[in-house]
């Protein structure tokens, strides 16, 4: 099973071992602001008691990521060391999405990731630039290529990405796949 999720939907999700224990939950999702890749999860303890806990789960230690839980093989894969992952600064949220030809498509309000085995950042939910007095515009989803340029303020996408914009998450998965295969076809 595969599906798409807004990254913010993972906040508060339990971290569960394959033994069925759940010591912690997701506090935040950590991205590489240079590449847009998912690096891991910042963690928080459930409840109020107990001593210091490991506060970081690197992505490579995730066994499975689904809509209901983040699965890990055992507690020992959690670490207290984010090994620089948390120092990147900046945030993908709020970046402007610009096409290669210079059109501002809007600001990023959410990162969309694919679940099921591999977590992959597949696109962004953006708030389109207000056009005239049309204040009723709603957010749209735009796919991102496998690699892209992010400066910490702006994200550059190919002009063709605008052909694969969708209004909701259902159907966005196939739009991402079509967009990426169209790009790879052009490159070869």
């Amino acid at each position, binding site marked *: *099973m*595969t599906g798409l999720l807004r990254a913010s939907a993972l906040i508060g999700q*339990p971290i*569960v*071992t*394959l*033994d*069925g*224990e*759940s010591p912690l939950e997701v506090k935040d999702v950590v991205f590489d602001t240079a590449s847009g890749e998912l690096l891991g999860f910042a963690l928080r303890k459930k409840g109020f008691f107990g001593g210091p806990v490991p506060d970081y789960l690197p992505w490579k230690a995730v*066994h*499975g*990521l*689904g*809509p*209901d*839980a*983040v*699965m890990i093989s055992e507690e020992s894969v959690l670490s207290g060391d984010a090994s620089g992952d948390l120092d990147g600064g900046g945030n993908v949220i709020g970046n402007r999405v610009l096409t290669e030809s210079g059109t501002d498509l809007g600001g990023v309000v959410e990162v969309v990731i694919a*679940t*099921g*085995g591999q977590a992959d950042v597949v696109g962004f939910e953006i708030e389109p630039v207000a056009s005239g007095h049309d204040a009723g515009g709603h957010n749209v989803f735009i796919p991102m290529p496998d690699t892209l340029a992010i400066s910490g303020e702006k994200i550059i996408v190919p002009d063709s990405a605008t052909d694969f914009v969708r209004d909701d998450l259902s159907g966005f998965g196939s739009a991402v796949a079509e967009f990426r295969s169209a790009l790879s076809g052009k490159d070869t």
Partner: protein
Amino acid sequence: MRWSEALGREVVDTSTAEAVGRVDALVVDPEASTITGLVIGDQIVSWSDTGGIGSDAVTISGAEPLRTPQTGPEEGAVNGRTRLLAKPILTEDGYALGELTDIEFDPVTGSVEQLVVDGDHIAGSRLMGAGSFAVVVSSAARVSSAGDLDALTKAERYELAKDRDVDGRSNMSKEQLRDALA
């Protein structure tokens, strides 16, 4: 036999013909998908010291069949930490399949045959772990790539049919979905 039927059954020692108590809980080894013991009060009887779960009573035999808990699962079963019924069932890839309502097992061997969840069944062979938070089972992807479609719930078969774009899936029964996916 169902787990819920076994609970509360009288336990009789065949060497003295005396009732020593009632079944308070069962101990499961998730990796082997097998029931390995019974909990009576704060003590354990190994499955190998029982004559299985009889229709009216559980008979036990041996020199000292009642003993203190020794393993993690045995301690968890005694102190109620790993009480399995009503726990959420999660796949290893993070999908919730529902709440565990009962467990069907072989009353002679203790082999776990099915996990009962909200009116559907998950094959006992998918059991991976059972802890204080959840019961963990293998993923639908792993099960289907092993060709064991019978082990999937109806909802999982439907999701798989959706991934493969099977026509008419919305009106199919659990068995029809399996046949369409095979």
